[in-house]
């Protein structure tokens, strides 16, 4: 079943002090099935973050539409948008975005507190997730007292705790070393195995090789996509690298 559908999405930024316009997204079309783990790759400045921000309602599209479960996101009223974000989406950011004044536990619980979830429910959801992510011994510490990899796992836990329809991750491994990245991707893979839909932006072929499908974006449009099928992660990684090479060499030739 199609969970997320993106149709003809276009985004034009207008510079603040001049009339100069940047076309970040030209015409993006793709869809994500329920239970998929999809990676989006592309060169720096190709519009990946912009795309993710529009899907997560943090930004508005210039034209085009995003459908979640068949409902257009642009129809959500302003008042409901925060609740929508809280309840249906989960976010993992490149720079973690944890709050220094909360303990790890409270950081994870934040979205639930904001939706006024009963205490018992919060507690019962917390433990399985932190155990699963291997951060249960840190939950009473503060963010500045744990490592980068642990912080990102906390961010994943915060995204998971609302039991969202889809998790949106923007370069979740961007600030991590290869071992921590590997670890995080295994976790995301595991979560995906259990049925969670994940849409992820990444620069790392290794990270992308964990997904079922990789979309390549160039010049604000989906340029290419490859499916993993029955391939092993390593084989898939090679294919991704090849595609990237082709992508960039064509880009060079184009210029």
């Amino acid at each position, binding site marked *: 079943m199609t969970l997320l559908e993106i149709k003809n999405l276009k985004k034009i930024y207008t510079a603040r002090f001049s009339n100069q316009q940047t076309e970040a997204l030209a015409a993006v079309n793709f869809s994500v099935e329920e239970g998929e783990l999809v990676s989006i790759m592309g060169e720096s400045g190709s519009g990946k973050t912009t795309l993710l921000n529009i899907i997560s309602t943090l930004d508005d599209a210039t034209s085009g539409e995003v459908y979640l479960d068949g409902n257009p996101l642009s129809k959500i009223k302003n008042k409901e948008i*925060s*609740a929508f974000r809280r309840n249906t989406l989960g976010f993992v950011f490149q720079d973690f975005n*944890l709050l*220094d*004044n909360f303990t790890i536990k409270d950081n994870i619980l934040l979205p639930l*507190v904001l939706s006024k979830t009963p205490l018992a429910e919060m507690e019962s959801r917390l433990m399985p997730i932190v155990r699963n992510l291997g951060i249960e011994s840190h939950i009473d510490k503060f963010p500045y007292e744990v490592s980068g990899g642990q912080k990102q796992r906390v961010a994943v836990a915060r995204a998971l705790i609302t039991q969202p329809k889809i998790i949106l991750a923007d370069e979740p491994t961007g600030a991590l070393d290869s071992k921590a990245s590997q670890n995080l991707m295994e976790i995301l893979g595991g979560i995906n195995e259990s049925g969670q839909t994940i849409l992820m932006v990444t620069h790392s072929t290794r990270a992308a090789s964990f997904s079922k499908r990789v979309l390549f974006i160039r010049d604000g449009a989906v340029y290419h996509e490859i499916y993993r099928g029955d391939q092993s992660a390593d084989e898939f990684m090679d294919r991704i690298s090849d595609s990237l090479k082709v992508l960039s060499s064509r880009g060079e030739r184009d210029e």
Partner: protein
Amino acid sequence: MFFLMVSLLTNKFVQERSATLPTLFMIGVVVIGLFSVIFILYTNSFLIKRRKKEIGLYGILGLEKKHIAKILFFESLFSSLLSIVAGLLTGLLFGRLAFMLLNFMLRMPDDIEYSTSLVSAGATIALFTLIFGLTYLYNVSQFTFANPIKLLKGKQEGEKEPKGSLILFILSLILLGWGYGISITIPDPLAAIEKFFLAVLLVIIGTYLLFISGSIFILKALKNNKRIYYRPGAFISISGMLYRMKQNAVGLANICILASMVIIAVSTTITINLGSAETLENQYPYEHNVRLFGDMDNVEEMNTRFFEVQDEVIALTEENGLDVAEMESYRSESFFGNLVDGRFVFKQNLLGDDSPILMMAIPLEDFNGMTGDNYTLEEDEALFYHSTKTYTEGELAIGNKNYKLTEIENEFSADMEFTESIALVVPDVSHLLDIRDDFMKEFTESNHITIDAEIGLDVEGTEEQKEQLVNRLNSEYNGGSDSFSLYQSRENQREEWYSINGGFLFLGIFLGLLFTIGTLLITYFKQVSEGFDDREKFQIMQKVGLDEDMIKESTRSQIVWMFLLPIVIATIHVSFAYPIVRKLLLIFGVTNDMTWLMTFIAVVIAFAAIYWMIYRVTSKVYYSIVK
């Protein structure tokens, strides 16, 4: 930020200037000086925290500590010079403006001059150089004792709970209790003047400690109460406050102290002003008051002069075509001593370590005439009034006499409550003479003790006639320094009183204004700086689904802290200050508790309203920053 420091400087500056009432204003100056120290250190700690990252980066990039110290030195030299100069200038300007405005509004009989002197400017400069020096040392120590990594992280880490907060908490209660205790147990106004400063100081320090330790306790308790903590508003605000708990506490304590000062300054001066009429009546119970002083060499002379003068006064009144409406007169003898084992032991004068008791002896016949009572006394009986009511034995020995006592209320003057005093109504004038003889036997040198008399009367007639009488009596009984009599007309005193009391009102309002501005600045500063601190957090939270209503809710749940807590504690402070302030008011002749209580309540409410407005406006500012 800069401006805030400058304005506080202004406060201090203006304070120094208007030090017309030496003791009370010394207190004011010291309190404000202390306050500026705390305030500037407080602002400085914010600023430096923000700059930790920058300086940490310098360190990593290879700048030596020596160089960093140098940079900091020039920075603080420059900024302190600028703020002192700007502060003096604004102080001058603001002071003049405020005085002009208040002079105009209150329509003083004589304008109160706003004077500036080099001494006060010098003192201001010295104090602030000291403060800035202190902040500089603090800053340098912050950077030299920390490693770059710590500095880089400086802004992230929350404030740590101060060590021994339980001890601090207990200490704060002790200090507050001590301060309150002084106020409650203060025996008389003279002691009140002495101890007032100490009490104020104790309470101020106690307040800081209380807020620092107490607020952290409460916040932690709230955090541990999951039902309260895990609700959107509380969740955000409690964690935020714990994150910067000391800053928060100091800010609240500042507000609380300022609030107390505003309330006390304004309510007492208003009371004094409102009580002026009553004060006058206390001080001058009659329109015309003649006081006769006894002749040391011929004490018995009073017993004839007393009646002669009464007749003379009545004659003069009628001569001027006026009728005597009411008249009161009595003879009395005043002397000092102490109560020891049922005996009143004479003391020669006021000097000495322990403050002696003032005793006033009055003959029964005059007492009955004065009060309209019909007491009769045997030779060994006396009526007895004691201001502190601590002497409860039925008998009292004075000289070679022993009196059986009957207790009465204060039918005399309100002055009796200034210091510990006793009024003793003895059977007749011969007893006064006996007491005098006994006293003289003990202190042969002394000439302090004579029989004096008071004659007071109200008259009826036209204004013109009254004025004539005033002049007549004045020339008759105000014969200069060697005369044995003194005449005071209430009418003549009234003007003087009003100008003095008007001056008080003026100063009270002026102080109130200053402190209110201080409150405004601190609240504003607190909200703005916290707003900028929290902005990033709120942005992150919005990404994970915080909506605007919740931001509002979290700012609203601060109300209890930001608004109610300082006001409530300030009210408690002021309530405990009540006894000592009441005693101080006695000096100004205000004895009506109701007036003071009513103005007190009115001022508390008015200040709460003003603070509420300040709070609303500043929290709007906060909201617009974080949104």
